[in-house]
């Protein structure tokens, strides 16, 4: 009994955290992304799942007639409903990563039907558990774990999409997020080896909570329109570069779209936004082989920062970007995208001052613009 009490306490604690977290973000109007509603549904379902093992234990204690039948039905419902929270969680993550979920949705619903068929077959032809003289008996201990495979599927699919979509991220973002996905899988292995079914869902909620906080923090570093990093990220990198600048030179390129204002004025804001997205895609494509930071600095200004090694690099990068531009301009006839560049190299001898550095960049870019 005390074991159950402690378990209930854990669930209560996690609930408190979830309520406070969601309350905070709701109160400060920070829940911008619509994908959080999937996470909300998923966490709610997971909390309901938390109570399943508890009720199952209660059914074990009481001596009621037909208890075996109730337990077998209850167990079947549990195995089938395993898939619900996991499905919603996957949809949340895909939605957050901007993956179109039209096709993958149907793929993710397969485990639910599989589990349903699995349990229904067992009901007629028992091979996992059965009713023997009105009591509940397991036949095969290993086949019980087959419905839990949905967790494995979810972990694999989310990891795949994280790897595919966070390609441009710098630092440990990708690794950390994947690490969070693996928490329930590790829990599953432990649970199977120790036969403690309760704790799967508490660990699952923990993984959800970590992912949620990670997403919220990361979102504040990403520009909503183009998906590039915004100034928050730049500020953090400037701090990092301050340490780096003692060892190596730093190259920064400020990029500005020429005549963006005329595109905006002539075709309206919708096309202007489209042009910004196209421009950011061009930049992304052209520097995908380099490891560097790409930031949307202001309205139509972008910033590239990296460590500086050779002189040819600047020309390499600008020619790559211009090449991509020409490719795009051939395809698109309504408006043309061209960039002006302002470059600045920071020598390791001087004291690094992030703000002044960016200011100088801005000046150089305007010079470049005037020359055209």
């Amino acid at each position, binding site marked *: 009994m*005390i*074991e159950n*009490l*402690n*378990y209930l*306490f*854990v669930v209560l*604690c*996690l609930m*408190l*955290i979830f309520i*406070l*977290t969601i*309350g*905070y973000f709701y*109160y*400060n*109007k*920070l*829940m*911008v992304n619509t994908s959080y509603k999937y996470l909300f549904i998923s966490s709610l379902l997971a909390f309901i799942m938390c109570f399943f093992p508890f009720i199952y234990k209660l059914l074990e204690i009481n001596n009621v007639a037909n208890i075996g039948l109730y337990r077998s039905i209850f167990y079947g419902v549990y195995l089938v409903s395993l898939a619900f929270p996991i499905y919603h969680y996957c949809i949340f993550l895909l939605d957050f990563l901007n993956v179109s979920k039209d096709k993958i949705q149907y793929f993710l619903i397969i485990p639910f039907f599989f589990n349903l068929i699995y349990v229904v077959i067992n009901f007629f032809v028992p091979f996992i558990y059965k009713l023997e003289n009105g009591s509940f008996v397991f036949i095969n201990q290993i086949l019980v774990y087959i419905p839990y495979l949905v967790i494995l599927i979810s972990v694999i699919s989310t990891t795949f999409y994280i790897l595919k979509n966070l390609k441009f991220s710098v630092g440990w973002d990708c690794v950390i997020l994947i690490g969070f996905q693996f*928490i329930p899988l590790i829990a599953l292995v*432990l649970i199977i080896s*120790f*036969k*403690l079914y*309760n*704790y799967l869902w*508490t*660990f699952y909620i*923990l993984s959800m909570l*970590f992912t949620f*906080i990670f997403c*919220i923090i990361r979102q*504040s570093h990403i520009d*909503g*329109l183009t998906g590039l990093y915004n100034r*928050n990220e730049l500020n953090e990198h400037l*701090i990092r570069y301050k340490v780096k600048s003692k060892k190596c030179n730093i190259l920064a390129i400020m990029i500005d779209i020429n005549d963006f204002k005329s595109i905006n004025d002539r075709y309206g*804001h919708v096309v202007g*936004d489209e042009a910004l997205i196209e421009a950011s895609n061009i930049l992304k494509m052209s520097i995908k082989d380099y490891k560097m930071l790409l930031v949307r600095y*202001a*309205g139509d200004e972008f910033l590239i920062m990296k460590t500086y090694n050779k002189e040819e690099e600047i020309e390499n990068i600008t020619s790559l970007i211009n090449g991509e531009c020409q490719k795009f301009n051939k395809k698109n006839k309504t408006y043309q995208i061209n960039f002006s560049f302002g470059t600045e190299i920071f020598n390791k001898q001087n004291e690094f001052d992030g703000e002044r550095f960016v200011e100088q960049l801005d000046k150089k870019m305007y010079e470049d613009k005037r020359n055209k």
Partner: protein
Amino acid sequence: MSSEQIGYLFNNAIFLLLTLFILIYVLAKRKLFQSEKYFKVACLLLCVMIIARIGGEMYNPLPGTILEYVKVACLFSFYWILPTITYYLFLYILQIFAVKCSDLKKFLFFIPIIIYHGLLIADLCVFKLDQVGNGWSGLFYIMPFLYLLCSAIVTIVKREKVDAFISFALLLIFVFLITAFTLQGLFYQKGVNFTSGSLSISTFSIFLIVSLDLSNRDPLTHLLNREALRSAIKYYCYVNNKLHKEIEIIMIDIDEFKNINDSFGHNEGDRALIKAAKIISSSSGEGVRCYRYGGDEFIIIHVIKKRKVGVIKEDIEKELLLHNEKYKDGDYQINFSIGSNVYTKESLNDIEFINMVDKLMYEDKKRGTSTNQSFIGKKDDNL
């Protein structure tokens, strides 16, 4: 290991993961959490405590073996650390509510813990080894209980110093903690395990609420900052476009702020900003968010419900008059230029809005002095 002990391990593993998450995050973002040293110490101690607790309860060693000593050492360190964590949490709460606390006072607060440690050592000496953590150990929970009670009282008394949500959440956390500790102390011998759980949950919640709030607030005026506005504007767009509600946006800037800055120095300029922020936030009322957008620009957004159009503007002007009368003989007077616009249904566009504000700010900066008339005129043209 019995199944009960494995359950115990799993319980504690969850809380250990939670605490480690906070600790790693806080250490990774050193810059942001510079002043939160009490919180860091509390987190670190909590991690050690949970590990000690797991080590102390996981196995039943044979009497006389080395493992028994290890178990006793683990349990002993658990009881040693427990009240210290609550002590640091208490100090952190004092810091949150900006209660000044000298080193002497801090030491005075620490004295109960020293007494407690003496008792603990006496307990170890007087009783047999295997009795540590049994018998009257429930009494050990009185000390952390007192610190938590003190923190809760501070939260209630000083609740108006911070945001309403934060004080409410902190109160909720402390009520939860106190209940958990009372239950733990009363039903200790029945094998209840609420300590590490409740503590790690509350540190996690405090971390979330207070520290994430740090990144959304301007350190000088404690109003919400530009990034918070950027995300909030999307929410207001949603309310405006999908839920069809009217929204009023008020923009305020301080007249001749550059002059104040130039003639009285930056410190005085900062003080003027703080005063202005106080006037704005106190007169805008509950549930209305105020943002400091840039140097001396403030933005207020609210959904028109109880407070009608123009009421807030009038309130601010009234408050400003009161303030200026109070400081009649001061070096300078604060004056606002206030421009406002009502967005009727489906007319607010987030990108346009932000771009417009940015442009206004930029032009303002270029001009050097913010002459309010042209600013307001421009604003009304654009809105």
